[in-house]
């Protein structure tokens, strides 16, 4: 007899909060809105904790059936939830980080119009993300998958009156659609070949199949298609382009959706489908290659960015690349581990960045910051911890997870490792660059005297009514600093669960135990050596950043002058957006306009409908004369009709 965990409460609570705020928030006070949002997301978090506590005493995976959804022949899909170690980790990350960011948002968004809308969307996002994480089949997962896309779209375009925000939202949505297309086709293939979308049923059918090592087969196809979906959602090459633009959204959104949770959905999905990927080495290799390339590629772009949030966005893309690299080399638990630590420190980074932006009245350009250390010490402290964590300096969280990934990558191929280590170096460099540019040196920004004027020039926080009226950068309120501190704590110690492969053992029931054995085979010296190399490189990156941006600030200019072409290319993100525009967008618009709109829509669809209507009018115009209003002609028709019926009956009778 299974205990009832009432899993359904976890997603439904944020949904209720979203509904209440969405329907009644407009008329409610900000306090009421924040109370509702906090209570529902907080309760969800508490319930998730309860579930985690109770789950330790029951056999996992635990399934919870809610209702029928699709019943079509032998194919059926239910609304049902699934809880195992993997979804438990995701559950805690999503609700925990989500709750912290909710708290943070109260302070950050307090002055915004549409306050209720923001929290309604945020809770809605929570609902969909939790649905995604808890689904017991691919279709319910897909609901969450699409739902978080929707929430992301709504939140990126939160300042929808601003063109760039609106188009960034659309871009995110459309790019995600491309990925979803792949995902959907993968689902169709699953339905066709396995007749079900239920995780356990699919995996039970996949497990006995042979590994497709010699050539690409069905599982490879499904894996690659799933990876396409994951690329869209998790911003991997070639579909990463939306994530930097998504920074148009409010900073807490960037922290929650575009750093900590939603973008990791792809990683989660790939990990969840690990059974399929393990049977498809080619797909796995593709995952690894994409992840590795993305990590390096995004990191290089991150070096040149000056917008504090853009730097973090590319950093996120890069870190996601790490995760995919981990998945690609079969180290799913390492990927999830990095996912978790990344959620902590990247969430922290974004929140801290938000705090910085908040402090100086909406400015996002790092060139106009500097020396903020003394103005906002708490922010500096927490951001420093996060930077250490992401750079892989022990004993902070990022070190453990990144090291784990690099070690696993090395076991598969030294190339992955090499690129990973280089990426780690670059990461360390640009993160410290960010830290130094922001907090060290002299304050380069203008003191804000006239409210709003400065804001209108920069930053997405355009609508903020800067009621603080300060001339100096100022520390954020404690409602914002609190989450920072908590996340800093987590970033510091969160990696310790990985010591001695505890985390991996925890996830072992999900991912199987073949890889831990491999680790046991590997020499401890080798692992230690790799660890030392990556730490040294991280410190080197930090030192380089210190040299370039603190001790000799004039040096970067010279370097950029000398390497002008390369710098320009990197600064413009390798012209990928332009390339996409030329390759896809323009032809698409052209074809849509000339063929689809003017050809198909006007000539075929409109004309056929118009002709049909016209024809119907003509016919009825002629036929209506039958409707003469003459009683006896009607009677005649009735008589003729009944005569036909009688004749038929007679014929039946005679012919019997």
């Amino acid at each position, binding site marked *: 007899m299974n205990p009832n965990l009432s899993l359904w409460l976890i997603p439904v609570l944020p949904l209720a909060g979203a509904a209440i705020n969405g329907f009644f928030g407009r008329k409610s006070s900000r306090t009421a809105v924040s109370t509702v949002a906090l209570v529902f997301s907080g309760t969800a978090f508490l319930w998730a904790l309860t579930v985690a506590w109770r789950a330790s005493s029951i056999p996992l995976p635990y399934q919870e059936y809610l209702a029928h959804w699709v019943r079509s022949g032998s194919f059926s899909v239910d609304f049902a939830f699934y809880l195992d170690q993997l979804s438990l980790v995701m559950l805690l990350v999503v609700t925990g980080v989500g709750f912290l960011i909710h708290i943070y948002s109260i302070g950050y968004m307090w002055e915004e119009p549409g306050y209720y809308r923001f929290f309604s969307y945020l809770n809605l996002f929570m609902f969909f993300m939790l649905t995604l994480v808890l689904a017991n089949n691919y279709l319910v997962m897909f609901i969450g998958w699409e739902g978080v896309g929707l929430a992301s779209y709504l939140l990126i375009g939160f300042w929808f009156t601003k063109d760039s925000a609106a188009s960034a939202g659309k871009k995110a949505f459309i790019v995600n659609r491309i990925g979803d297309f792949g995902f959907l086709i993968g689902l169709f293939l699953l339905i066709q070949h396995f007749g079900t979308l239920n995780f356990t049923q699919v995996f039970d059918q996949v497990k006995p199949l042979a590994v497709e090592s010699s050539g690409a087969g069905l599982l490879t196809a499904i894996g690659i298609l799933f990876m396409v979906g994951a690329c869209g959602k998790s911003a991997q090459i070639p579909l990463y382009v939306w994530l930097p633009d998504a920074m148009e959204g409010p900073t807490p959104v960037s922290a929650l959706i575009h750093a900590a949770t939603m973008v990791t959905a792809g990683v989660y999905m790939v990990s969840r489908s690990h059974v399929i990927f393990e049977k498809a080495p080619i797909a796995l290799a593709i995952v690894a290659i994409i992840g590795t390339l993305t990590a390096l590629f995004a990191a290089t772009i991150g070096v040149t960015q000056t917008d504090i949030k853009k730097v973090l966005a590319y950093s996120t893309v890069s870190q996601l690349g790490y995760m995919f690299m981990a998945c690609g080399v079969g180290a799913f638990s390492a990927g999830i581990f990095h996912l978790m630590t990344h959620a902590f420190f990247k969430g922290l980074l974004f929140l801290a960045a938000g705090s910085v932006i908040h402090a100086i009245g909406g400015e996002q350009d790092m060139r106009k910051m500097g020396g903020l250390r003394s103005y906002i010490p708490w922010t500096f402290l927490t951001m420093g911890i996060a930077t250490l964590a992401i750079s892989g300096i022990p004993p902070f969280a990022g070190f453990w997870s990144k090291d784990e990934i690099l070690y696993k990558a090395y076991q598969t191929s030294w190339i992955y490792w090499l690129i990973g280590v280089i990426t780690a170096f670059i990461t360390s460099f640009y993160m410290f660059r960010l830290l130094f540019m922001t907090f060290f040196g002299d304050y380069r920004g203008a003191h804000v005297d006239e409210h709003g004027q400065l804001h209108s020039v920069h930053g997405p926080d355009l609508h903020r009514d800067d009621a603080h009226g300060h001339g100096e950068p100022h520390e954020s309120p404690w409602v914002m600093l609190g989450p920072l501190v908590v996340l800093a704590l987590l970033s510091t110690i969160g990696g310790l669960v990985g010591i001695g492969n505890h985390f991996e053992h925890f996830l072992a029931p999900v991912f199987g135990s073949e890889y831990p054995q491999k680790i046991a085979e590997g020499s401890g010296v080798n692992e230690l050596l790799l660890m030392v190399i990556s730490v040294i490189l991280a410190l080197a990156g930090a030192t380089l950043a210190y040299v370039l941006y603190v001790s000799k600030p004039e040096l970067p200019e010279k370097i950029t002058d000398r390497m002008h072409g390369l710098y320009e290319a990197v600064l413009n993100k390798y012209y990928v957006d332009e390339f996409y525009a030329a390759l896809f967008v323009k032809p698409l618009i052209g074809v849509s306009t000339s063929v689809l709109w003017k050809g198909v829509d006007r000539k075929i669809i409109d004309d056929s409908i118009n002709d049909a209507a016209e024809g119907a009018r003509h016919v009825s115009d002629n036929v*209506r004369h039958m*409707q*003469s*209003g*003459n*009683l*006896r002609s009607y*009677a*005649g028709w009735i*008589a003729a009709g009944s005569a036909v019926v009688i004749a038929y009956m007679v014929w039946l009778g005679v012919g019997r």
Partner: protein
Amino acid sequence: MVPLSYYLVLSGILFACGVAGFLIKRNIITIFMSIELMLNGVNLSFVAFAAHWHALAGQVFVFFVMVVAAAESAVGLAIIIAVYRTRETLNVDHVNLLKL
């Protein structure tokens, strides 16, 4: 002894005459009477079947048919009077506003 079919044929002829009257008559009252003729034709077959099957229900049906016919003719004639009051004619061919 008269076969049942004779009654049925007679009833059929009466019914057919009713149909014909309905179709070829112009006077709305006559058309109405044609309907009554049809009803009578049907009634005859009811009674004949009742006798044939030894089921008195057939006669009860005829009773109901008569009652309904009475109600129908009362309302129908009232309608005819109302129509005549407004249209000043009893010719159905002239009462043809029921068209486009």
